[in-house]
Structure formats: structure tokens, C-alpha cells
């Protein structure tokens, strides 16, 4: 088929407009929020890997998170649960005394399966909490962290109800909703999160899924990995290794 001059110019201008739009979009997602800043949001995609078989329930992560983020007493951005699974698998005994901020009293029953499960915000890609916010105060950042805009949150607590993992709470003094920020103020400076920093066994590790050198890729390839409540289709980014089916 012959291309007429008119068709040629039409195609060219279409291509030009598309390229310009794409360039603009790339510029928007790639530029850092601060002026003199080496951190580029578009180059990161944060998540966490948790090795359930390494967790000893010491509560170091809970204490560290509390101090780092000034979490009000009685509220938790991360916590540890102890599961004791008897033959009645549907009803395991789950304990988390005060979020495990002071650890656990020792479990003595050797005849039941028991283990610790650290929990935190799963930083879902399709986050129910983000979907329900009526004012756009909670969002998934370009680097994959679910954050709250403290100036725009109304404190309506719709997101607290929407989160399937119970990871949000109403801050009693600020009167806005508060949650795990994956230590956004730390990870954007090249540090790891407070919970990962203080974990003595390496049971939890901050990972960057966009970094090809990150050990997460090997971890996901070599291990049997599960996310919490996969039936909710939230695309959670906290991956648990060897997670027992009794964990909810």
C-alpha cells in the first residue's frame, strides 16, 4: 500500500504527541520531591521479607518501632503474634500481649506446634485503605509505600475499618489515622527500617524489588513464600517464608 503525504504527516504528529506525553509522565514519576536530593522514587519499590523460622519473639522490632516513630502507648505499627496450633487447626491460640513490646512469657507446651509471626503494614499495591479514603489523604507512593498525609486526613477512620490486616490506628493526640510508613524517613536516606535494624536474627529484612542486586529476588526464587490473606487480592508486599496455614 502506498503512503500518501497526508498520512505520513498524520502518523508523524501522532508519534510526536505520544512521545511528548510519555516524556512528561516519566519526568513526573522520576523526579525527587526535594530539590537537592539523590533519592529517586521511580528507582525503588519497597517491600519486606519475613522468615518465620527465624523469629524468636523478643519484641525488639516493636520497641524499636515505638521509639523511632513515637508511637503512642498501647498502639502498634508492628507487633508479634504467637501461634499455638493444636489439632483443631481452625482455632489456634493466638497471643500478642501488649503487641509483644515486652516480649512473651515463655511457652511451655512442647506438644503443640507453636511459632512467632511478626506483623506490620503489608504496603499493598491494591490497598483497600487507599481505595476508601474520601479525601485522598492516604496513597501508595511512587516507590510503593502506603502513606498518610497528616494535613489532609480528616480522621474519619474509614481506612481503619477497610484494612484487612488491622494495621491502622487512630492517633489519640493528633486525631488522625496513623500507620507504618516503612520508616519512609529512613529508607529514603539509605538506612533500613527501625524494626529491621534492631531484629537480632535477621527474621525481617527491608527489600527493594526494583534493585536487581537485592537478595529478595533469590529469596523469592528459592523459598516457599506466602503473603497474608492472598484471597483479598491486595497484592501485599510483605512476603513470609514458610508461613503456616493457620496464620490469619
Amino acid at each position, binding site marked *: 500500500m502506498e503512503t500518501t503525504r497526508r498520512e505520513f504527516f498524520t502518523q508523524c504528529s501522532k508519534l510526536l504527541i505520544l512521545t511528548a506525553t510519555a516524556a512528561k509522565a516519566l519526568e513526573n514519576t522520576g523526579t525527587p520531591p526535594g530539590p537537592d536530593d539523590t533519592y529517586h522514587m521511580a528507582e525503588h519499590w519497597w517491600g519486606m521479607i519475613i522468615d518465620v523460622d527465624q523469629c524468636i519473639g523478643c519484641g525488639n522490632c516493636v520497641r524499636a518501632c515505638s521509639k523511632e516513630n513515637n508511637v503512642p502507648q498501647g498502639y502498634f505499627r508492628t507487633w508479634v503474634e504467637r501461634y499455638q496450633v493444636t489439632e483443631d487447626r481452625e482455632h489456634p491460640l493466638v497471643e500478642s500481649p501488649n503487641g509483644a513490646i515486652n516480649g512473651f512469657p515463655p511457652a511451655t507446651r512442647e506438644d503443640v506446634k507453636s511459632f512467632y509471626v511478626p506483623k506490620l503494614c503489608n504496603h499493598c499495591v491494591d490497598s483497600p485503605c487507599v481505595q476508601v479514603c474520601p479525601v485522598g489523604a492516604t*496513597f501508595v507512593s511512587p516507590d510503593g509505600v502506603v502513606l498518610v498525609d497528616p494535613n489532609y486526613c480528616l480522621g474519619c477512620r474509614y481506612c481503619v475499618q477497610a484494612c484487612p490486616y488491622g494495621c491502622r490506628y487512630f492517633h489519640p493526640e493528633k486525631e488522625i489515622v496513623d500507620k507504618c510508613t516503612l520508616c519512609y524517613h529512613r529508607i529514603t536516606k539509605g538506612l533500613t527500617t527501625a524494626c529491621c535494624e534492631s531484629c537480632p536474627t535477621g527474621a525481617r529484612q527491608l527489600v527493594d524489588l526494583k534493585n536487581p542486586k537485592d537478595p529478595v529476588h533469590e529469596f523469592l526464587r528459592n523459598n516457599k513464600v506466602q503473603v497474608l490473606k492472598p484471597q483479598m487480592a491486595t497484592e501485599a508486599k510483605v512476603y513470609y517464608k514458610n508461613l503456616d496455614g493457620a496464620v490469619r
Partner: protein
Amino acid sequence: MSRFFRDSGHLIRPAVVLLAVLVIFLLVRSAVIPKAFGQYGHYRPAALNLNRQKPTVFAGQAACVGCHDDQAKARAAGKHAHVACEACHGPQGTHADDPTALKPTLPDVATLCARCHEKDAAKPQAFPQVVTAEHSGGVVCNTCHQPHNPHL
């Protein structure tokens, strides 16, 4: 011409009102919507910086080892090689910023060691655990074990 306006007045008047409402709506909208809203998504980009501005409380492993490399070497030789300094010593961000501002206090060994090493059926079996009361009979752990390299 005048006849045109007289005959079409019933159309022009609502059109003017509609236009005025539209202009007011656009003005209010531009005043109310925060700057750059929607640049990355349905939120204010400024919220990203708000979340980044908090001071760090934990200094991080690199900051500790920068000065205390002797302790880091001692630790690297033992079983605690992969335990970060602040896991036991607590948050030292203030100390790292200005070493004279805050002198870290030594952790209380009586509670510190037991938190990880007290016998517990829910802990992974390979993890070293003892019933502290039977193990030492009340003698504090660092009488025998050096915390940085606990092997006897």
C-alpha cells in the same frame, strides 16, 4: 440587531448566568485544590516530604561501626556477628550526631539476654535457649559470657 437581543433574551440571560457559575466554579476549584495535586496520583505530593522530614532515632549500623570498629571486630568473630549494635544498645541517633550530647548507658544484662535466650517452646529449635534460673542460678550472664562474642 436590537430585535435579535429582544427575541433571544430568554436564551442569553441563562447563558450568562451559566457562564458566571462556571467561572466561579473554576476559580474556587483552583483555590481549593492543593498545588500539584494529582502529579503522582490522587494525593498531594507535598505529603511525601512531610513523611520524610522526621528525624531518625536509630543511627544505623554503618554509623556505629564508623567509630567503634574495635567492638565490631570483636563481634564479627562470634555468634552475635549479625546482631546490629542498636539491637542491644538501643537507639543511638543522638549519640551518633554528637558523641558528647548523649553518653550511652550499658544495657541491663539481667533482662537483655533472657529476652532472646530464655527457653521458649515457640522459638525455632536451632536457636540457643536456656532456662536462665537453672542455667546460671541467678549469676548474671556476662560473668561468664562476653556479650560481643558470647562463646566461652
